């Protein structure tokens, strides 16, 4: 071989610029990966402690006279969270059963039903609530924050949270009968 004493030429992108570019690209990839992971995750899973949220309530559908309810305030009670909408036909299949179940469990004072109205308009929601004679606490999912936290895939979906705030069961789609609802609540009361 011959002499290799050639001065190192200055070529390519400076190191600092390369680091910035690669860091930026890596950041973008991480964001895309997290988004894909979240999209494929499905709903929140049983065993997970449900974070606190605030549900504003429709007038006439308050909880203990309060116009909004915080999940944290319901620790010590079994909470049944039902996502629904007035435009949702499958929701109508279970509406009467949910109200019947609420009528049965309300006197015990150990169970709370929360209806979360997803992407709905209030006049139509009120007509729906009146049509099915629903009396438990109900309110809109403002800015879809609660449904985004639960990562709901549609309506109806129902989440059963135990007295410690741990999610125990997720019902995707409507209940077939009131027995299906009882079958999820009763074990949580023992």
């Amino acid at each position, binding site marked *: 071989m*011959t002499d290799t004493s*050639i*001065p190192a*030429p200055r*070529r*390519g*992108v400076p190191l600092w*610029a390369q680091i910035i*570019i690669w860091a*930026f690209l890596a950041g*973008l990839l991480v964001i895309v990966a997290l988004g894909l992971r979240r999209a494929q995750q499905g709903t929140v899973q049983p065993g997970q402690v449900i974070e606190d949220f605030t549900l504003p309530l429709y007038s006439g559908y308050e909880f203990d006279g309060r116009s909004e309810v915080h999940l944290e305030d319901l620790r010590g009670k079994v909470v049944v969270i039902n996502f629904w*909408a*007035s*435009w949702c036909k499958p929701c109508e299949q279970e509406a009467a059963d949910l109200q019947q179940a609420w009528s049965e469990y309300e006197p015990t004072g150990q169970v709370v039903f929360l209806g979360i109205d997803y*992407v*709905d*308009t209030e*006049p*139509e929601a009120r007509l729906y609530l009146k049509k099915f004679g629903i009396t438990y606490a109900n309110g*809109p999912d*403002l*800015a*879809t*924050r609660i449904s985004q936290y639960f990562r709901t895939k549609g309506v109806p979906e129902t989440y059963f949270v135990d007295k410690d705030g741990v999610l125990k069961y997720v019902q995707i789609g409507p209940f077939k009968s009131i027995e299906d609802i009882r079958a999820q609540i009763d074990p949580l009361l023992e």
Partner: protein
Amino acid sequence: MGSARIAFYFLLLTLVITGLWTGSASAQGPTPTDDEVNRIAKQLYCPVCESTPLDVCPTEACRQWRDLIRTMLAEGKSEAEIEQYFVEHYGARVLAEPPNRLATYLVPGIAILLGAFMLFRGFQMWMKPSITGAGEEAELGAEPDRDPYIAKLEEELKKQK
């Protein structure tokens, strides 16, 4: 004479009722047309059917939203007020155009600039050897900014011939 008086009072009553009805209707505002509703609706997307603008979406949820827009327009709400209501109730993702925030435009801008810079540098590096190759017949050293590595390589090749 009597029948003329009855006719007069009947006419008077009709005018009074018509006046009252018109007055109450104008207090509520005229019913907005479909075009007025759709002008706002086409700027919104329902989260249930994400890829379809509200003005052409056939679902029940979207029909309810359009009815709500019509009601709000009849109540005298402005376009901005209606959009604000929808953002508050259903989130900013219902807007066809993202909210006017700095990051919304800054991040894509930076990404495009970085991409363009990388492309430019890559193109520069890719072009350099072929420019040198085109000047193969030229004397070495004739181009002051020639790549010293290529010059050395060509020198070695010449020696081997």
